[in-house]
């Protein structure tokens, strides 16, 4: 049996009469990148928010790193969340803090005995990783979209998570910057040996990063396979993504 870092079974989540997830299943093997494709409003972001319990699912089970996330109390959940990184669509940088403070913020709350030298060294390393050491003292409002994404990525990885959840990592970026972000994600994944779930509707992201692609449609895992397997699929909903056919 494969060593899965995430196992989701029969996940259901509704908002009123809108059944966003309706029995969704997913396994993420260790070290793999799973890209979840789906139309806007299909429940992709809801899925990863359920994994870290930003949203409470209605039914189903979510096991992360061998532990049932839905049965955890608040403290256990916080400990688990340190092992899961989450890159938000709009980076969600704390806009009252400088870039350096943004990166120090999670460290100071989990590694209480970290010295100033160690913290500075980690922040500098994280900023070097994303090529933005010079931006350490800038405010988020002074950064471009691509820079914000890079800083968001640096902040996500600073606690060395074992799993990273990416919510639309290239949305709102031009194709060149989007490609740079994807390459950065791949480099850092290899460097820190993380597993990831990447939510996207960008086929370039899927092609470049995916070990496995999942098509989320009608709240279910509609199709799953490698990028090339799904490319050869005759299924209408899968073809919509690959060929833009409606």
């Amino acid at each position, binding site marked *: 049996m494969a060593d899965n870092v995430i196992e989701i079974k029969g996940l259901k989540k509704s908002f009123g009469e809108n059944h966003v997830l309706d029995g969704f299943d997913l396994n993420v093997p260790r070290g793999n990148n799973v890209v979840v494709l789906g139309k806007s409003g299909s429940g992709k972001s809801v899925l990863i*928010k359920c994994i*870290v319990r*930003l949203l409470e699912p209605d039914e189903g089970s979510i096991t992360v790193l061998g532990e049932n996330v839905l049965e955890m109390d608040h403290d256990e959940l*916080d*400990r*688990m*969340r*340190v092992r*899961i990184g*989450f890159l*938000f*669509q*709009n980076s*969600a*940088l*704390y*806009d*009252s803090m400088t870039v350096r403070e943004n990166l120090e*913020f*999670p460290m100071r*709350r*989990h590694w*209480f005995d970290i010295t100033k030298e160690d913290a500075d060294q980690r922040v500098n390393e994280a900023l070097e990783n994303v090529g933005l050491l010079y931006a350490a003292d800038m405010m988020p409002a002074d950064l471009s979209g691509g820079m914000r994404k890079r800083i968001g990525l640096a*902040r996500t990885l600073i*606690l060395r998570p074992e799993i990273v959840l990416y919510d639309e990592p290239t949305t709102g970026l031009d194709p060149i910057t989007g490609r740079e972000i994807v390459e950065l994600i791949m480099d850092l994944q290899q460097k820190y040996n993380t597993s990831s779930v990447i939510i996207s509707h960008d086929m370039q992201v899927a092609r470049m990063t995916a070990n496995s692609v999942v098509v989320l449609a009608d709240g279910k895992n509609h199709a799953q396979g490698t990028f090339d397997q799904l490319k050869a699929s005759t299924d209408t909903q899968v073809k919509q993504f690959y060929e833009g056919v409606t």
Partner: protein
Amino acid sequence: MFWRANVFTFGSNMSKNSAWKEIFDEVGGISYFTARFFREGLRPRYEWQELLRQCYIIGYKSLPLVGITAAIMGMVLTVQSRPTLEEFGAESWLPSMVAISVVREIGPVITALICAGKIGSSIGAELGSMKVTEQIDAMEVSGTNPFKYLVVTRVLAATLMLPVLVVLADGLALYSSYIGVNLKDVVSFKLYTNQVFDSLEYSDFLPAFVKSYFFGFAIGIVGCYKGFNSKKGTEGVGHSANSAVVVASLAIFIIDLIAVQFTDLLGLN
């Protein structure tokens, strides 16, 4: 016509019911939020650095506005009261009257209302914008407790800083009242302060000081509640800021009313 009257009555009952439901929802929500404040606030670890930063923002940065308002308030009260007191030949009571009015009621309430506008709206807008830009979610998923970091510190800072602002506002109002008195008379500062302190007792100062803690708490908790529960979008942020001011102002008057009844019961009036 009968059916029409019944339909209108039914419609009006429906809207009354939904208004009541909204009020009860709001009261229930704020009560639950307050209970959570005490639960999270008592649990270590404490965010001392952020608390100090919030005390600086809420206390120090509100000083100019509170100070100017207090000075104008003291001056206006003095100048406007003088003709009436003169009619009764009681202008020598002016310092005492202003002191008791300012210390017991006007100082704390006006300062609290000014702070509800400045601090309440600022907290509501800041947390509301953090909510809609997913910054609060980002804290949550990094395993940090955003309630402890954002809410507990702001509510505590507002609770601790408001009495300080009230004392400073009282002082400034009385000083500007001294200037107001000297616009038409010549009264030495020593005589003026003697009259002020002779007229004041602990029972004037203490209840006013204690209730200003409650005012600060109400401003902080309402601002945080509105911001933390902001709906999506910029319109939601504006609504959070606006309703934080409205609800906090209303809460200040209700607390004031309760405080008056309470001090009356204790025989402090």
